[in-house]
């Protein structure tokens, strides 16, 4: 717990800023976007009927449902969640090398496994706090501006935010352990998340399910959640498997490899 305690002290401002920003943004965006579909006939025809909404898993019909626009917005906030998760995880696991503190921390009696656990716990707590802020702000905004929605559907849609954050976090942990002298974690995280978004959009446009397995954004399809009141099972199991592999491999790498020291 000592490592977690100090990691938390070092990261809490970063976590709170992210959580607060996400909460403020979703709270202010919900009324703006819902006001746009009060008169759907005024939406540009090409925009409404083109494939854009399908790339984020929403149809025009679903968009007019109480949680349709939230699902659309949530898909984009999931990008922010992914960047937060991956950047935070990468920072946690690369800063000992890039800030030249690895030789201090890794020669203390806590050992590598406790350091790993402390950092992963910090990532989990950070994910929980930012997600709680986001979901709470979403819920309040929805109650205020668009009441009468299905609670289960809302939980599943909003729940995709922490799940996307966590899987990108896991990816960040793996990358951080594998290549700890990464000095551009934000750039890496942004590129990885953007690539994930592009893969999902591409796979949905061409209708390729195999390609969609490559991106976590594909795993949480708003239209499927609306129709079946749960996530797609194959994607869900694939998600759990990927997350397990990310944490298992990263732990193994950290335990086996030489500790990379700053050059």
């Amino acid at each position: 717990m000592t490592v977690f305690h100090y990691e938390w002290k070092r990261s809490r401002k970063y976590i709170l800023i992210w959580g607060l920003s996400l909460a403020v943004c979703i709270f202010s965006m919900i009324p703006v976007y819902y006001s746009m579909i009060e008169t759907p006939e005024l939406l540009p025809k090409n925009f409404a009927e083109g494939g854009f909404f399908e790339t984020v898993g929403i149809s025009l019909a679903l968009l007019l449902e109480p949680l349709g626009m939230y699902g659309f917005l949530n898909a984009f906030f999931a990008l922010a969640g992914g960047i937060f998760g991956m950047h935070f995880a990468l920072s946690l696991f690369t800063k000992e090398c890039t800030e030249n503190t690895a030789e201090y921390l890794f020669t203390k009696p806590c050992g590598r496994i406790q350091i790993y656990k402390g950092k992963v716990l910090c990532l989990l707590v950070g994910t929980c706090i930012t997600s709680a802020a986001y979901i709470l702000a979403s819920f309040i905004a929805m109650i205020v501006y668009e009441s009468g929605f299905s609670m289960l559907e809302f939980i599943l849609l909003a729940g995709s935010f922490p799940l996307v954050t966590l899987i990108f976090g896991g990816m960040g942990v793996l990358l951080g352990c594998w290549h700890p002298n990464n000095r551009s974690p934000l750039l890496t995280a942004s590129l990885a998340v953007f690539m994930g978004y592009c893969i999902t959009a591409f796979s949905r446009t061409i209708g390729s399910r195999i390609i969609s397995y490559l991106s976590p954004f594909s795993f949480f399809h708003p239209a499927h959640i609306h129709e079946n009141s749960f996530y797609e099972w194959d994607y869900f199991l694939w998600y759990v498997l990927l997350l397990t592999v990310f944490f298992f491999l990263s732990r193994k790498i950290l335990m086996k490899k030489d500790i990379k020291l700053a050059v």
Partner: protein
Amino acid sequence: MKQAVIMLDGLTKSYGKHRGIENLTYSVLPGEIFGFIGPNGAGKTTTIRTLMGLLKPTSGNATIFGLDCTQHAAEIAKNVGYLPSENCYYNNLKVKEQLQYTADLYGVNCHDRIEELAERLNLDLSRKIGDLSLGNKKKVGIVSALLPSPKLLILDEPTSGLDPLVQQTFYEILREENSRGTTILFSSHVLSEVQKLCDRVCILREGRLIAIQSMKELRENGYKKISLSTEEPVPAQFFDIPGIANLEQNQNSISFMFNGNVMTIMEKLHKLPLVDILIEEPSLEEIFLHYYE
């Protein structure tokens, strides 16, 4: 016979094509101050990092307190105070917070010890690490290594950046720790520093063990670098005696390395019309180049 605190058996670490250390075998006995000397790039830090479990050996093994350094690094670290050669502390923490973090990681309460060591080394606990000079950062490292009162101290180039007064205080602290039974592995490339403190030294060059000598043996092999100038040129054969190496003569100026009975060379020098003379300790590089090649 006492069980060795540190034992290296054929320890080898290579970084692909790059040389690390090769086949190091030696041991450090309990209560000993063991010097670890060699020029920059000799492999001292690689050896120490392998002992501390940061690097995995390519072959061979190393044990501390009878435990394998790779398998039981965390267990070993409970009784080891480590001072790395480079400053590796959190710049955004205050000195006090950094030292408290060390105490927490060791699971010890040593507030008084921190205060005592900081006072002796004249270290301001309230400043941020990032604002400290190189020497003061080194002091943070020294206090951090000493505060859990470990059974073994591993110090990698501990005095680089310290002013001479603080160095003296540091040597005093080390002697006190040693008198309490602490074993010390002291790495340095400054021969005189090692000579002041150590019981035995291990000399390393290009990743290989050159020799392990007691201080008595090292003093008997007291290499001196002598530079002199004379009123008139000295005959070429004048210094043709055992123990002279690397003789360089430039008109009235001569320099050479001497290893042998001091009276022999003094008698020779006495016969010369000397204008100036400088007798100094040769650098390790000079010793290695001229005596070990």
